[in-house]
Structure formats: C-alpha cells, structure tokens
C-alpha cells in the first residue's frame, strides 16, 4: 500500500515537473510580449498609431515613424518569395519525383545544408561577393532592358533592396523546398498513378494532382519561409544599405526593421529613441507571429 502511494507520488512529481518546464516556454513567450509592450509605452504614447504611418526616423528631432523599415521588411521579403517559391517547388519536384533514388538523399542534404550556414556568412558573402556582381553586371543589364520601369531605375550600387531580397531568397529556399518535398512525398501513389495512367505528363500530374493535394502544406511552407525572411537580420543588414529613403527603385538602399535594430540599438540614447526601437521590435514580432501562426495551422491540418 505504502509502495503504491510512493509510486503515485513519484509520478505526480514527474508530471508536475515536466509541466512546469512546458509552461515555462509559454511564460517566456508571454514575458517577451509583455516586456516589449511595456518598454514601448513611451513611444506608443508619444506617436500613437502615426508611428506606423510616419516616414520620419530622426533621432535629432526625436520624431520616429516605422513606415520605411516596415516597407523595407515587406519589400525585401516579397522579392525573396517571388524568386524562392518557384525555385523551391522546382527543387522539391526534382527531389521527390525526378532525381534517381540514389541521388535524392545526398542532394536533399546538400540543399538542407544551405539552411545550416550561419546567416552572418550569407551577409558577408552578399556584401563582398554578390554586391559587386550586382553592381557590375546584373543591375546595368536590368537597367538597359527594363530601365523604363521605375522599379529598375536609378543608379545600381550593388547594395540595396534587390540584393537583400536575393540573399534572403537563398536563405529561405532550403526551408520551403524541404517542406514542399515532404508534402509531395505524401501524395498517395494511387492518385498519381491514375493520372499517369490517363496519359498525363509529369508536369500535369504536378499541376493537377500534387499541388492541389498539398495546397495547405505548400502554403504553410511558403509562410514558414516568409516568417524567416521577415525576421532575418544579419544577412539583410550587410546588403540593404541602411538608408531612410522610400524609393520605387529596387536598386535603392533601404532599411528593414531587423537591420534598423541591429544598427542602432546599442547607440540609441534617450528614452524615446530606445522605446521607438523596442516598438519596432514589437511590430516585427507581431507580424512574424501572424505569419508563422498561419504557417503552423496549415502545416498541421495537412497531417490530419
């Protein structure tokens, strides 16, 4: 009897202890939001909602608005998604359907290793290797062909929105392509075989069977990559150019929320400046929370 009680007590302690740590994760999350919210109060009180719509970011006059970093974050992410979605689906198709069996493992690993390279290495590579190539070859070429579109006007200096977007593309491809590959692999074989039996080509099977079947999973993968791109700091900070100008040109330097924080946080003097930076962080956290939350919902529903 006593032995039994001891057992039950041990199990209770075990369960309670693990529950404590699981709750700890949730607490850290809540503490993050609470700390960011509380410390951005001076800025919220001073600027209110105009913080989100103001283009001014001026430590001298103590006027702070998030519009330029927010737009920079969104634009660089959209550029990254524009390139990364088709490329990742191509890679996933190759890994799931086209590559010979012996090549799939090593090739998949190689693509996933791209995700393991630290983001600061991407940043340095973007600054020292990719930017000169952009400035000397890609941007003049784009300008000579598409220069009449405002997006490709202006001087190409290598660093800027487009380069930042391209570095982000490289960084999120492994995330999107490995999830999409797993989604493709989960499409039931009979579905695919029926389509092939009707005479469909590979592409038609992908377009009409695999992509519709894995719709939610693919959307989840894209949002996962998007969440990564939104919050990526080092890779962007090196190449985005750090300038507070809003321009139609993708060649122009800009700023993202993360790069603003990386560059200015340690140098911020004065309560309002610091608090505005914290509020920027809060805005970033909020955006990524929504995007990653949607990604999780879609990726989970795929499994059911």
């Amino acid at each position, binding site marked *: 009897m006593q032995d039994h009680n001891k057992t039950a007590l041990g*199990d209770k302690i075990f*369960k309670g202890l*693990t529950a404590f*740590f*699981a709750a*700890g*994760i*949730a607490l850290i999350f809540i*503490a*993050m939001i609470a*700390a*960011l919210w509380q410390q951005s109060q001076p800025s919220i009180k001073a600027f209110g909602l105009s913080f989100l719509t103001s283009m001014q970011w001026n430590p001298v006059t103590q006027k702070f608005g998030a519009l330029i970093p927010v737009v920079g974050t969104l634009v660089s992410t959209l550029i990254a998604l524009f390139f990364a979605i*088709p*490329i*990742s689906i*191509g*890679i996933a198709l*190759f890994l799931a359907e*086209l*590559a010979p069996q012996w090549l799939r*493992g090593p090739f998949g*690993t190689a*693509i996933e*290793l*791209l995700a*393991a*390279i*630290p983001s*600061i290495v*991407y*940043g*340095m*590579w973007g*600054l*020292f*290797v990719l930017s000169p190539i952009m400035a000397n070859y890609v941007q003049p070429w784009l300008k000579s062909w598409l220069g009449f579109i405002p997006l490709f006007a202006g001087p190409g200096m290598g660093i800027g929105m487009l380069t930042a977007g391209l570095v982000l593309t490289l960084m999120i*491809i492994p995330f999107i*392509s490995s999830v999409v590959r797993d989604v493709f692999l989960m499409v039931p074989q009979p579905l695919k075989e029926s389509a092939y039996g009707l005479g469909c*080509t*590979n*592409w038609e099977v992908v377009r009409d069977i695999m992509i519709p079947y894995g719709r939610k999973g693919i959307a989840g993968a894209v949002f996962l990559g998007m*969440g*990564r791109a939104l*919050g990526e*700091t*080092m890779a962007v900070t*090196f190449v985005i150019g750090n300038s507070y100008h809003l321009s139609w040109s993708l060649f122009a330097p800009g700023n993202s929320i*993360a790069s603003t*924080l*990386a560059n200015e*946080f*340690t140098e911020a003097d004065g309560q309002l400046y610091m608090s505005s930076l*914290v509020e920027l*962080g809060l805005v970033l*956290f909020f955006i*990524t*929370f929504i995007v*990653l939350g949607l*990604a*999780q919902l879609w990726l989970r529903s795929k499994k059911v």
Partner: protein
Amino acid sequence: MIIQRRKLINASVLTISCLAAFGGLFVLIWILADVVLKGAGAINWSFFTQLPTPPGMSGGGLANAIAGTFLMTVTAAVIAVPFGIMAGTYLAEFGDNLLGRVARFLSDILVSAPSIVVGVFVYLIMVKTLGHFSGWAGAVSLAIIMLPVVSRTTEEMLKLVGPEMRESALALGAPYWRMMAGVIFRAAGPGIGTGVMLAVARVAGETAPLLFTALNSPYWMHSMNEPMANLTVVMFNYAMSPYDDWHVQAWGAALLITSAVLIVNIFTRLILGGKRRR
C-alpha cells in the same frame, strides 16, 4: 499538335526543375568555396592564440572571441538542454491538453521567431536592469533560441519509441517515471542527442541576439559578468570596417564557424541516416 505542346511544356518544366536543383547545389558550393578561399589565409597559429590587434596593425588573432563563443554556447546549452528535454517530455507524454497544445504551438513559433527580437528582450530584462552588457545575457538569449528546438526534437524522438517498450516496462510494475528514465529515454537518447547537437550548431552561428547582450570586447574576459568577445559579432564589426586586415580575419572566423556547423550537421545526418537504414 496538342500532344507535342504538352510534351514541350513538360520537358521545359522538368528542365527548369533540374536547373533549380543544380542551381541550389551550385550556390552552396559557391558560398563554401568563397569562405574557404578567403578565410584560409587568416587561419594560422596566432589566429587561435592571440588577442585582436588595433585597427591598422597586422597580425593578432581572435582567441578571446573563439573562447567567448565557446563559453556562451556551452552555457546556453547547459540552461536550455535540461529545460527543453523536460518540456519536450511533457509535450510527448502528457501534452494532449490545453497546456500541451499552447506550449507546442508557441514552441513552433519561437523556433522561427526573429532572433533579433530575442536579443531586444534579453537586453530589456537583463542588460537594462543590471546596467551592463554581459556574457550571461548573451548565453541567456542563445538559450532562449535553443529551447524550443530542443523541446520539439525531444517530443518527436520520444513519440518514435514504440508502445511495446512502454507497455513492457509498465507491465513489470515500473512507475511511469521509472519507465521514462530507465527505458524510454535510453531508447530515444541518440535521437535527442543529435537534436541537441543540431541546436547547439545553430546557436553557435547566431549573431543578432548577441549584438546587444554580450556586445563585444577586445580583451580577455575575467568573468561572464562583463561584455564578452564572440566570433559572430567580431565578424560583423570586422566585415563592416574599412580595414583589409580585418576583412581577412572576418573571413577566417566565417571559415571556422561554418566548418564547425557543417561538420556537426553532416555528422549527425550520417548517424541518423545509418539508423534509419537499419
């Protein structure tokens, strides 16, 4: 006619798909080649043993930064691994309730949450309240980034252990916690271990959360209670500086970190791959 068009479209899509895959491989090789070529020149004995030199002076090394990164990463692991394994155990064993679902969802968000925001958070709770940058603050932010990775891996690995083992242990009269400690953790151990290694590798290359927690320092640390040199922030400062000498050292640091991270990744994959085949 239509068949030809369909075949043509198909062939071009397949070609593009192959190009995309080989393009990815090409970029991986390109980046690694650049890191090796530009970084190899910086790697020598003094790189590992000397302190950084002031700008303009050649020579010197990053010994303090290497030690700092190592120390903070290990401290982060000491904090995050037990925490994460306990939390992951709850998620796997008792997690089919509200707390479990919430913790799982938030873990998944935290895994991909912007690491710079973690840096801001730790700045607010530790650096600002204590009044100075410190190695501890750096280690705590790395731990926060590691934690969700460890807990989710633990959960997945525990769930891979089949019900037969649980039932056999319970049938022998073992209490639940004895079954977990003596049987299930042993079975899931290698998997959890590789997950922990991957998490450590990931935070070893993190920069953003250290920028305003550990900061940087050109000196040897005396304790973790002061600003602490670390490889990634040094890389950031050096690469952004105008000195060629510093650029070379930044590439050297990139080579060191990248090779360490990739070796851990390839090694753990080989272990996991070998397991799966058996």
